[in-house]
């Protein structure tokens, strides 16, 4: 096997995996917060569509969502997204639903007394949310968020079903042409390294926020 060709190719494909990872996070975290807000609203016109959205996104396979966004948009809406864009859109929409439920759990776990204390002191709703509630939510949701981030690193490999050339796709091409398992082992180490970094980041964040209970 020619490692001088294999490794640069795998590294390049890793960049694609990382691109999907970061684009997904940048867009799905804020989107997830909006979905959570809508889901917690007392207005049916907001919370019913959000419940439905979360049901669809969590209740159907991510792979199906990828296929649908790439192959299904043209016949239904007449729009054809390119492969990478379809993949990113699918990941963003899917992960936003999971993040929304994590945010909701975090926000609802803050005791009502915190809202009441803030209200009696004269804070506006916006000040209460951003200065009192959200900082406490961040601390509480770090462990489940860590899970999602790690899952996302590995889920990026699903993008190959719509022809996105990411790490696992390049790897399996090499495996079939060279009849060697070594590329799989290398790919596993790549994923492991990425998730070691993710894990480390979450540990640091948790330690930073451990100054209070």
């Amino acid at each position, binding site marked *: 096997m020619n490692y001088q060709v294999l490794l640069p190719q795998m590294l390049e494909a890793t960049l694609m995996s990382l691109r999907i990872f970061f684009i997904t996070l940048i867009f799905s975290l804020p989107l997830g917060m909006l979905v959570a807000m809508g889901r917690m609203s007392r207005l049916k016109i907001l919370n019913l569509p959000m419940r439905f959205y979360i049901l669809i996104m969590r209740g159907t396979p991510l792979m199906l969502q990828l296929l649908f966004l790439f192959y299904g948009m043209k016949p239904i809406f007449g729009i054809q997204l390119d492969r990478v864009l379809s993949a990113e859109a699918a990941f963003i929409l899917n992960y936003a639903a999971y993040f929304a439920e994590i945010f909701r759990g975090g926000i609802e776990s803050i005791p009502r007394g915190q809202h*009441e*204390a803030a209200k*009696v002191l*004269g804070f506006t709703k916006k*000040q209460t949310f951003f*200065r*009192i509630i959200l900082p406490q939510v961040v601390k509480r949701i770090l462990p489940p968020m860590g899970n999602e981030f790690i899952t996302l690193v590995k889920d990026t490999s699903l993008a190959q079903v719509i022809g996105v050339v990411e790490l696992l796709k390049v790897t399996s091409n090499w495996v079939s042409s060279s009849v060697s398992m070594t590329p799989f082992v290398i790919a596993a180490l790549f994923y492991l390294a990425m998730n070691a970094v993710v894990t480390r980041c979450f540990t640091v964040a948790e330690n930073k926020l451990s100054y209070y209970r």
Partner: protein
Amino acid sequence: MQNPQTLTATDIRKSFDGTQVLKGISIQVTKGQVLAIIGPSGSGKSTFLRCVTQLETVDSGEISICGETLVKNDAAGKAVYANKAVCAKIGLHIGLVFQNFNLFPHLSVLQNITEAPVRVLHKSKEEAETIARDLLKKMGLSEKADAYPCQLSGGQQQRVSIARALAMNPDVLFFDEPTSALDPELTGEILKVIRGLAAEHRTMVVVTHEMKFARDVADYVVFMDNGVIVEQGPPEELFDHTQNERTKAFLSRFNET
């Protein structure tokens, strides 16, 4: 006005899911007065306090604080609240100390006290910190300014929450069973603080189960049971010379112990 009423509540009614919790409560608090509200659990004391502090809305009745009307009845006898800006302004006249302290755990003791003066009253950080340190000194917690709430005892936390309320310089300070979450030893230190505030002629309304405290500190005592005021009057009258059977029965349980 000779006797400015800091708080006037008239015929306050409130139901939760069809159960009437407040069945027409009326009280008046004069500037500088300490009012104690006593009564068994579930009598509506805390609900009444929560209505006056805008944590609950009333179904009917009138509330005015420092001459400003928070809520009054319309022609049909249903409560109509002032607009949002007026409600917020009235809210600044009052402070509330909770049973469970409700300090902000992610903020230091000093930040807990300065956050509202800075964000709500738009005081400078320096001014807010000066006020906060003075209050902490008064509470005997000067050395705890940089600690976090989780590092403090219950009594210390409650003193910080009193300082937090005082930092907003309210015209009337409400206490919702301020010692109920504390053991007897720590109860004493909180009662001492409230006694000190009474000596400064702070206007206060204290919902409490501490009968001895109510008798010593309050100028006026209200005994509530089952959503109504059973009896009210100066403490010596209510505690020593009551003719009311319900009041007698309630107080006898405390005298036994």
